[in-house]
């Protein structure tokens, strides 16, 4: 199972807690999927979200607060400090949004905020692109986990740059890597795990499904299948057919 900052997590599935039809359905989704980590946002609740945060703390998953909705380094750093006080954890999923329409991370602000927060004793989970240089800078800034996007947040477009993610995996073989954002279907989650990623983080695909709990379970199954497949060392694809039963002795030339 994935290990982040020395902590082993019970499942490679990480679920967001926003946009569910109700907290009761949110809890069902966590029960059905046994997701190991629950991300939770602070920003929009403006300090009046204590009841909801208590519900999230009762989900049975480890809490990873995030800085969703922050567009500047200063906002993200302030939100992270609030999160540490509220949830009593050094873990922070760092989001610094750079583009309003695509919610693409501002990678420059991200590296800067990561450096500040690491200095403040945080264990940072940066939401980033799959850019090798950016990821290298994040590691230099003290991050020990990277969370590259599969596709823009909430888009459900899946693994958009398989080449880039594969190359990231190959270059940072020892760093825990999480595909965060863009997962729309279990097949996308399975693909990320087959590629050797340590975990996937998703929210909208489950929260906006007609039956969130059933979709959460489907995601858990997919993540398990993808991880097992990766560990089983899959075959290499090839162009020529290779019959799985011998053809010699059969009248295959006729």
């Amino acid at each position, binding site marked *: 199972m994935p290990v982040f900052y020395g902590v082993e997590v019970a499942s490679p599935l990480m679920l967001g807690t926003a946009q569910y*039809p*109700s*907290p*009761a*359905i949110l*809890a069902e989704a966590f029960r059905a999927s046994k997701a190991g980590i629950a991300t939770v946002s602070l920003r*929009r*609740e*403006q*300090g*009046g*979200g*204590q*009841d*909801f945060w208590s*519900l999230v703390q009762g989900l049975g998953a480890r809490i990873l607060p995030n800085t969703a909705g922050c567009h500047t380094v200063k906002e993200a750093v302030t939100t992270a400090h609030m999160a540490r006080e509220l949830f009593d954890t050094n873990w922070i999923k760092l989001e610094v949004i750079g583009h309003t329409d695509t919610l693409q991370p501002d990678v420059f602000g991200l590296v800067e905020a990561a450096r500040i927060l690491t200095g403040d004793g945080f264990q940072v989970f940066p939401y980033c692109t799959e850019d090798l240089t950016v990821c290298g800078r994040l590691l230099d800034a003290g991050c020990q986990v990277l969370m590259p996007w599969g596709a823009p947040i*909430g888009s459900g477009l899946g693994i958009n740059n398989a080449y880039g993610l594969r190359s990231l995996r190959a270059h940072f073989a020892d760093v825990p890597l999480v595909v965060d954002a863009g997962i729309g279907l279990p097949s996308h989650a399975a693909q990320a795990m087959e590629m050797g990623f340590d975990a996937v983080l998703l929210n909208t695909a489950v929260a*906006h499904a*007609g039956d969130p709990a059933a979709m959460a379970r489907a995601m858990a199954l997919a993540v398990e299948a993808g991880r097992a497949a990766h560990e089983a060392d899959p075959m290499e694809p090839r162009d020529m057919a290779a019959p799985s039963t011998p053809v010699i002795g059969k009248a295959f030339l006729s």
Partner: protein
Amino acid sequence: MIRILGAGVMGLVIASELAARGHPVELVDPEPAPGPHGCSWWAGGMLAPHCERESAEEPVERHGLAAIDWWDRHAGGVQRNGTLVLTLNRDRGELARFARRSTGHRTVDGDQIAALELDLAGRFAAGLFYEAEAHLDPRAALSALRDRLVAQGVAFHRTPPEAAPETLIDARGLAARDRLADLRGVRGEMLVLRCPDVTLSRPVRLLHPRIPLYIVPRGDGVFMLGATMIESDRRGIVTARSLLELLSAAYALHPAFGEAEVLETGADARPAFPDNLPRLRRRGATIFANGLYRHGFLLSPAVAAMAADHLETGITPEFMDEVSR
């Protein structure tokens, strides 16, 4: 005598239902009349059981269907013009999803949309029309209930009278958190615009992956825009971000809203239980009626009928999850 605590939508509807069934009732509320202190004051007033089903549990649709007739009978002023659900072209997938998750609609094309709402002609190529839905002006409806109760001789007290009532119905909304530990607040923000350049006959919902908006015509060029759903119990003033989102969605619906006058903004916290469905709870001589969430006008008639049935026959109705006599 049945005493009802709280004269918001839940308290007034229970009082009206019980009074109509011939029971003596009285209300206690520190405020003299419906107003900004209660969260139903900020409601949209959509009676839209089919549309709500997209994100709400099944009982909301089943029990909400009866609300339209109930309000017409007890308060009047119900507009039965249906609901129009639209989306910008790039979000067309949202419309398909909304259609799949609800019933009671038919697909309408650009011409049919123009026939329903002339001012939206040429702006949208496809939509959903929920013909059986309705809307009302929530403030007028609350005041009408109160006036009719007063006319029937029902007493409204600012503080509880000394004589203990036979039965107490606690309908205080979020204020009842002191007795209901699993009740939480869900913040909603709204604004009221005057835009004489636009005429709409029915509520219009604009689907958007990030900023869903509804706009309810209140007549005389006045529109209510709502409403955010934020997991927070903070009341008070609307935030700049919510204002920006609501207004930009309205502008996308019709650019003339850019010239509208902002008459009012408001925010309050809706009382909700974890599954966002209402509850009746019986503890001794007290019955709690609460947790209407964003369905105050849609579900209060059903909750009131259940409370009345329980008082009359002792049955445990659907929304009653706790009975200790």
